[in-house]
């Protein structure tokens, strides 16, 4: 079929890579695409629990590359979508249990029978990062609007260029509209100005993410969740659709605020 391999990466840890992979993967599956999620965070397996699939694991990625099982046997089918699969990370192994060449071969095999392969990259820029990006055609860089995360994202842009993954796209996660309004959080324009790469989407900081992660049900499944809506939009953009960026302002954006002020003035 010849699908695409997209790595979700960040540099800094804890900014929302695993959350993004779970939600975007589920979002693409909701669009009818055949998707495989690969947890490349070997030693710190997490994607399984975020997806609610932790009880179904038999084999993992290291078992596959070591030839202990067939790739097909290690893939776990999602509870909700039969066109969505997870290849779990090994929990008791090191990052160097897989080589970049093995990763490349694995990705190639996976794309033969799927539309998208999403790779959950570990934090950092060492071995694990190099493995995770080895087989990727595209990259999405996740950042939060804080100085250290943006700084690390810039480093990743440089490293991806060196690995010949051009034009990575940026996902800005955990934006707090009230802080942006006060001028106490970098806004989308500031971050875009500094990093100068294409924006794929903005996700608000949302308690629904915590609740949905507790339950092992990605927020994209919740029609009322704002973060879920943001991830649904990003999934459609990944799939090549043009979707307008949503306003993060819960009170209705600039114009309604202007109108409100004018009304008060009258």
């Amino acid at each position, binding site marked *: 079929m010849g699908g695409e391999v997209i790595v979700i990466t960040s540099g800094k840890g804890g900014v929302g890579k695993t959350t993004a992979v779970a939600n975007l993967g589920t979002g693409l599956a909701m669009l009818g695409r055949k998707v495989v999620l690969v947890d490349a965070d070997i030693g710190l397996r997490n994607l399984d629990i975020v997806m609610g699939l932790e009880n179904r694991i038999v084999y993992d990625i290291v078992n596959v590359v070591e030839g202990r099982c067939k790739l097909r046997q290690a893939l776990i089918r999602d509870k909700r979508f039969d066109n969505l699969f997870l290849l779990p990370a090994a929990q008791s192994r090191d990052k160097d249990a897989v080589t970049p060449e093995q990763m490349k071969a694995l990705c190639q095999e996976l794309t033969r029978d799927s539309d998208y392969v999403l790779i959950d990259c570990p934090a950092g820029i060492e071995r694990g990062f190099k493995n995770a990006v080895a087989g990727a055609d595209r990259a999405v860089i996740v950042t939060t609007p804080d*100085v250290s995360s943006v*700084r690390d994202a810039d480093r990743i842009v440089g490293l991806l260029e060196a690995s010949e993954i051009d034009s990575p796209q940026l996902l800005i996660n955990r934006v707090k509209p009230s802080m942006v309004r006060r001028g106490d959080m*970098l806004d989308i324009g*500031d971050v875009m100005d*500094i990093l100068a790469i294409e924006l794929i989407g903005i996700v608000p900081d949302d308690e629904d993410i915590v609740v949905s992660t507790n339950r092992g049900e990605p927020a994209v499944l919740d029609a009322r969740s704002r973060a879920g809506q943001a991830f649904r939009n990003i999934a459609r953009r990944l799939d090549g659709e043009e979707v307008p960026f949503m306003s993060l302002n819960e009170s209705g954006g600039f114009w309604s*605020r202007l109108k409100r*002020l004018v009304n008060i*003035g009258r």
Partner: protein
Amino acid sequence: MFEFWSRLWGRQGAGCSKDVAKERLRTVLVHDRASVAPQVFEKLKIDLIRAASRYMDVDESRTQVKLHRQDSAVALVANMPVLRLKHYTEQNNKAARRGDGRPGKAQGRPAPRH
């Protein structure tokens, strides 16, 4: 009126913390990018010497190119000792545009015929 705008825009512009964050990031990223690619400065040095040599003889061995931090700004500082300035004539100028720096004498690639 001022209150109207400040209510509309929040505290923005009045030295709010995100402006500080943005300026600090801008500066630190110049240094970060420079430190992971020091060869950029070697290449830039060669380009600068080539450009200057059209107009003057410079001491290549003592030329230095580096970044200099000044408060919140970063400056590119090139220190290039000048040995001799060339005579500025029309002919000289043509040579400068041709890029070989030596009027009438071809260097490397054959000079274009006029």
